[in-house]
């Protein structure tokens, strides 16, 4: 019966499709909407996830009590003052333990219009100290926070069970008061769920979400996007974008294409090797921000391991560092403007006049000659007592690290040092424990490129990475001091830094530790793992964006409310 109309039906179908294409392309963008490409879908909301892309959401709709800006200075959207010894909010009790007073700002509201009060902080304390309330990542909170007491509706007092100078926590440690969960919403939900947050759709799908941030969650379309709208009850800066959509795009090449076609406005956290592709997109501004993460060249300075004996001489290590043109290699591999870190610790902890070794081939040759490593047989390689200076140089299969290996090999060749290059899987082989015969734990390497970063907002030192006791051994096979750095004077400083409440005294101790570690020269920074951003200038006024980006692991959108539409 449709036979005689089939051509007409076919024509109508084709026309509908073509019209659909044109209409779709021509749709006007008349709403202040910001679409951010999100490379990983969050698993759950709140503190039940360790994923960076879940944690990043907090700055949109669930601000913490305290945060750190791009210069690692503490600030707060929630608290009226930053506690310190000077303002009397940090004291020591009779037991010698740290007591901190926190004061909420007046007039703060949850996104549903209810007031934020000290009771919410008490509720957060219960969540973080009582494990029966469900599966969240509590970090150090339950082990160091002894109590949290309400003084009045806006004041709480937090007591630690020890001297605790990092009372606000840090990038890696959660100890600050947890006031970002609304008691009036969650307590009834938990009561109906057997007293636990496990399985609550509040966290798993964002259903009924109430939070404290410039935006509030509107919808989470699994596998596709999270949509947030401006929070009308936000007492801080009102966001200029009425709506922010996080679009999940898992494929990095497609992220770039989506920015090119205008489907998203912002792409971030892409790799250095995509810089050229992003630069080729018209109407897109590109920049990067620093981070605590850096790839570095690590030396194995083990005094009695399978490493090359030359590396036990600090002057040989200095010569190697001098021989590598790190600035130019980084520009060539990681991109223009990517910084070379000077020392393992963040520069905020550097003492004045800290020696940073630069590129100096003549000095490298001189140091090697003085150390007795000379080319005695004219084969182009230095040797001593019949042993050639050839180093076992490892890294993981990451392309940028392989590129660095090759560039460093060429530099070292120029001063008569040979290298054998190896690329092996990281967790399973290179970083595996001594029990699992990990290459580094077994001290069976000379040089290695990998990333291990410090916490830039805390001066504490990780004993398992840098103390004598942290060197992997049959008694301690999982430890991570792969460089085999051992200095008793440095070891003494570690607990002192961790337990000195006075900031000035603590900083002085930290300066000593940085000096000691730096002078051992078992670490040479290669490049900071910057976070790249590409933003469409026809949608976003980039001037208001760059200065407010966070530089810690998960605070990049800490000033999202200040982002402005273009024009």
């Amino acid at each position, binding site marked *: 019966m449709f036979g005689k109309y089939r051509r007409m039906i076919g024509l109508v179908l084709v026309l509908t499709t073509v019209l659909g294409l044109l209409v779709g392309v021509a749709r006007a963008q008349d709403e202040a909407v910001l679409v951010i490409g999100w490379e990983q879908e969050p698993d759950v909301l709140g503190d039940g996830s360790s994923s960076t892309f879940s944690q990043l959401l907090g700055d949109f709709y669930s601000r913490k009590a305290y945060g750190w800006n791009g210069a690692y200075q503490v600030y707060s959207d929630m608290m009226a003052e930053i506690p310190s010894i000077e303002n009397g909010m940090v004291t020591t009790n009779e037991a010698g333990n740290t007591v901190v007073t926190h004061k909420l700002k007046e007039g703060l509201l949850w996104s549903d219009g209810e007031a934020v009060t000290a009771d919410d902080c008490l509720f957060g304390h219960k969540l973080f100290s009582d494990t029966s309330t469900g599966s969240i990542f509590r970090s150090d909170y339950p082990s160091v926070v002894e109590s949290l007491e309400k003084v009045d509706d806006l004041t709480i007092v937090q007591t630690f069970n020890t001297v605790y100078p990092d009372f606000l926590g840090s990038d890696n440690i959660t100890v600050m008061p947890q006031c970002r969960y609304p008691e009036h919403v969650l307590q009834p939900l938990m009561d109906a769920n057997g007293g636990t947050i496990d399985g609550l759709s509040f966290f798993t799908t964002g259903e009924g979400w109430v939070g404290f941030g410039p935006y509030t969650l509107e919808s989470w379309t699994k596998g596709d996007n999270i949509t947030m709208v401006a929070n009308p009850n936000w007492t801080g800066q009102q966001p200029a974008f009425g709506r922010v959509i996080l679009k999940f795009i898992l494929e990095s090449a497609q992220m770039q294409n989506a920015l090119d*076609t205008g489907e998203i406005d912002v792409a971030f956290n892409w790799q250095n090797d995509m810089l050229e592709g992003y630069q080729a997109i018209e109407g897109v501004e590109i920049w990067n921000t620093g981070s605590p993460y850096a790839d570095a060249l690590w030396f194995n300075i083990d005094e009695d391991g399978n490493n090359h004996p030359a590396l036990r001489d600090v002057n040989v290590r200095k010569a190697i560092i001098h021989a590598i043109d790190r600035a130019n290699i980084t520009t060539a591999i990681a991109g223009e403007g990517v910084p070379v870190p000077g020392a393992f610790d963040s520069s905020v902890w550097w003492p004045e006049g800290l020696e940073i070794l630069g590129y100096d081939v003549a000095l490298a040759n001189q140091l090697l000659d003085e150390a007795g490593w000379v080319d005695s047989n004219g084969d182009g390689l230095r040797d001593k007592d019949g042993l050639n200076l050839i180093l076992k140089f490892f890294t993981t299969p990451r392309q940028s690290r392989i590129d660095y290996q090759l560039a460093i090999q060429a530099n070292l060749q120029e001063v008569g040092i040979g290298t054998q290059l190896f690329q092996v899987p990281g967790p399973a082989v290179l970083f595996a424990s001594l029990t699992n015969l990990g290459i580094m734990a077994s001290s069976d390497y000379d040089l290695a490129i990998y990333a291990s970063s410090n916490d830039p907002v805390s001066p504490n030192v990780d004993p398992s990475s840098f103390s004598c006791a942290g060197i992997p051994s049959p008694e301690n096979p999982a430890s991570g001091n792969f460089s085999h750095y051992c200095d008793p004077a440095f070891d003494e400083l570690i607990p002192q830094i961790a337990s000195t409440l006075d900031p000035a005294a603590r900083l002085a101790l930290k300066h000593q530790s940085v000096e000691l570690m730096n002078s051992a020269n078992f670490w040479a920074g290669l490049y900071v793992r910057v976070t790249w951003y590409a933003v469409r200038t026809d949608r976003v006024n980039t001037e208001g964006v760059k200065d407010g980006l966070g530089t810690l692991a998960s605070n990049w959108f800490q000033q999202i409310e200040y982002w402005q539409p273009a024009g």
Partner: protein
Amino acid sequence: MGKYVLRRILSAIPLLFIICLIVFLCLKLSGADPLGHLANDPRVSEADRFMLAARFGLNDPIPLQFVTWLFGDDWLKRDITGDGEPDEFGKQLGVLRGDFGDSIRTRTPVAQVISTALPNTLLLGLTSYVVTVIISMAIGIFAALRQYSVWDNLITGVSFVTFSMPIFFIALLSVQIFAVEAKKAGLPYLPVQGMYDVRGDRSLDELIRHMILPVFCLSAISIAGYSRYIRATMLEVISSDYIRTARAKGLGNRRVTYLHALKNASLPIVTLIGLDLPFVLAGAVVTERIFSWPGMGSVFIQSLEPIDPPVVMVFILIIAAAVVVTQIFIDVIYAWLDPRIRYS
């Protein structure tokens, strides 16, 4: 026929059980730790990790884990705090009681994860399958009727080239041409990801626009393969005596081709379709990932790193069940296409 189908369904139950057991053991014995990625995260304490592992039964012995996957763990009290004392009962009812468990990654019921992704996969998969079957039938028949002509040789060449290309290459190439370069040239261009424009409405025309490239990529390689197969079976059939007889009796060319030849050439094609169709449910892993299509393929990829055993298990179970059901369905189709076939 009814008895035959019932017998096939009953015999599938032990088969599915064995498949589940093998997949479960493979997952567990592979050493992949669903919480391994938390080991070096300073924000996650050892106690946090232990508790999460305990609540998901990951601290239980492997045989017990399989038992609780099947029968649930609401009868089992586990140590959650690490003090050696049992603290709380589990909450899962087990697969046999209709509870597929919770995803370790998203903490949501697996049934919810699957039910969100499956319709999207079916939409994409079945559309591309219909497109594939229709176009490859047309091309295959067209080429068979013009054997060794210029058209036939051209189709053969294009088929081989397309069939040789990996799907990610076709996907990225088509994105480059129909989206990126088309936009640069000022032409209408296609979206490169998702099911809808997140700024726009969820209208049908939006959906169609977003489906064009993934359907094209999924269909291109299949059409290349299917059309060769259809061409071969058609060639075999149209040279048969009964086709010659039909022509000799004066039947029209169209009637002979589409009624007599095509119906008889369909049996091996139905077999091919029957073998491929269950994998539509699995989603097109590469295509869905490239085009950010929120389907089963995307779920599967995300469930592999870090490994999310409850999701992977149900994923495999669905495919296995689909293979079994499809094979039974194909047997029924056989009987309809060829009345000589009888099952007892």
